[in-house]
């Protein structure tokens, strides 16, 4: 058990992180514990297939399909599974709807839990000490660093992902999009808006 073993085996590996990874990969492949083709498949999955487009599709549908929104509210895990979004770091999903009076912000202060199935690999800032240390205590200052200034009357609910529940923020639907279809709506939904550090794009400025 590595519990407070102060003679950490990792110190036996080369200090340079890229060489460290390479040394461990080589060793595991040689021992038959890791298949290099599986590594390529994992990287391909998270570099190209699983990313914030998934979450954006969920948000766009929640905005435009009231029956889906109902299912999302009742059991978000099942509702997003309908759309094919299941798996690692997305086993238990809860959707958080922003309103005129409540803004939701997601953090993981203890590590970097994040809804991989819907948003992919977390961005660097989400994993940074600054975000982890400050988001729960000082969310409005953190939001201002993302250019988001909320009305003082809007409450901020911060969700610290301490268990295996993964949170997806449903940003507010921009005004003037009543006629938009789901695909166009999804183009308004940024990664940050689904973590709560951003808002959906203004349709007037959208490409």
């Amino acid at each position, binding site marked *: 058990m*590595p519990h*407070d073993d*102060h003679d*950490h*085996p*990792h110190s*036996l*590996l080369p200090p340079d*992180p*890229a060489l*460290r*990874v390479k040394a*461990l*990969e080589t*060793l*595991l492949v040689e*021992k*038959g*514990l*890791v*298949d290099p083709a*599986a*590594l390529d*498949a*994992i*990287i391909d999955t*998270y*570099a190209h297939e699983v*990313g914030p487009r998934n979450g954006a599709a969920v948000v766009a549908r929640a905005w435009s399909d009231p029956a889906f929104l109902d299912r999302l509210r009742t059991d978000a895990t099942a509702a997003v599974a309908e759309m094919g979004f*299941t*798996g*690692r*770091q997305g*086993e238990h999903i*809860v959707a958080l709807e922003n309103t005129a009076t409540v803004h939701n912000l997601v953090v993981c*202060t*203890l590590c*970097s839990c994040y809804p991989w199935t819907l948003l992919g690999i977390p*961005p*660097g*800032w989400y994993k*940074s000490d*600054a975000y982890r*240390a*400050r988001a*729960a205590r000082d*969310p409005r200052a953190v939001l201002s660093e*993302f250019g988001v200034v909320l009305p003082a009357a*809007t*409450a*901020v*609910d*911060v*969700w*610290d*992902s*301490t268990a*295996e*529940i993964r949170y997806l923020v449903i940003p507010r639907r921009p005004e003037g999009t009543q006629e938009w279809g789901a695909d166009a709506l999804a183009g308004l939904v*940024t990664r940050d808006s689904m973590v709560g550090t951003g808002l959906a794009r203004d349709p007037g400025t959208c490409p």
Partner: protein
Amino acid sequence: MPVTRVHDMGGRHGDGPVTPAPQDAPPFARPWHARACAVTLAAGALGLWSIDRARHARECLSPADYIRFGYYEKWIAALADLLVATGAVTREELRGAPATPSPLASRRLAAADVAPVMGRGSPYGRDGAGPRFAAGDPVRTRRPARNLYVSGGHTRLPAYAAGHSGTVIRCHGAHVLPDASAHGLGERPEPLYTVAFRAADLWGVSAHPADSVRLDLWESYLESP
């Protein structure tokens, strides 16, 4: 309070501003980040440790390493520690000695299984005792935040939320208890709740009076106030 580790940083002062990234930034900033991620997931698929044990291995990095290492450096360091702790590799192999074929090779994740294994995940809900608390119930978190089974062991109650009064807003059914699972003590599932705390109760008057902080907490973390 710091009956805890340096990873438990929620509320800490002294960190600088957060640096946003473009919405379309590539998920892996460096090629070796992608390799580190993939090696960790592939090794995890051997089934030698739980996610809780893997988290605890990262937390057990020395405070200096935890702070100076980047995200994937922590992953790789903890992975090396876990592989030695479980006997999957030896210290000598880490040092560069010739690798011995592993009897665990039959568990190797095949490329063809990546999509189904990643797409299935591993749900943490379990059959278990019914919940003691209901939505709307006032609760108080235990204090100090610590593992009751192992001194200095893994727990998911952040120090900033220890000993505070809040309100249950949801019960998620029974989930695997990290405090046990991280230490090979079985899953000991317990009801998991989302509990809301007033930000001003946690942080004092500097917090906005309307704001709240919500955490997912197991039943043994909670008591009636």
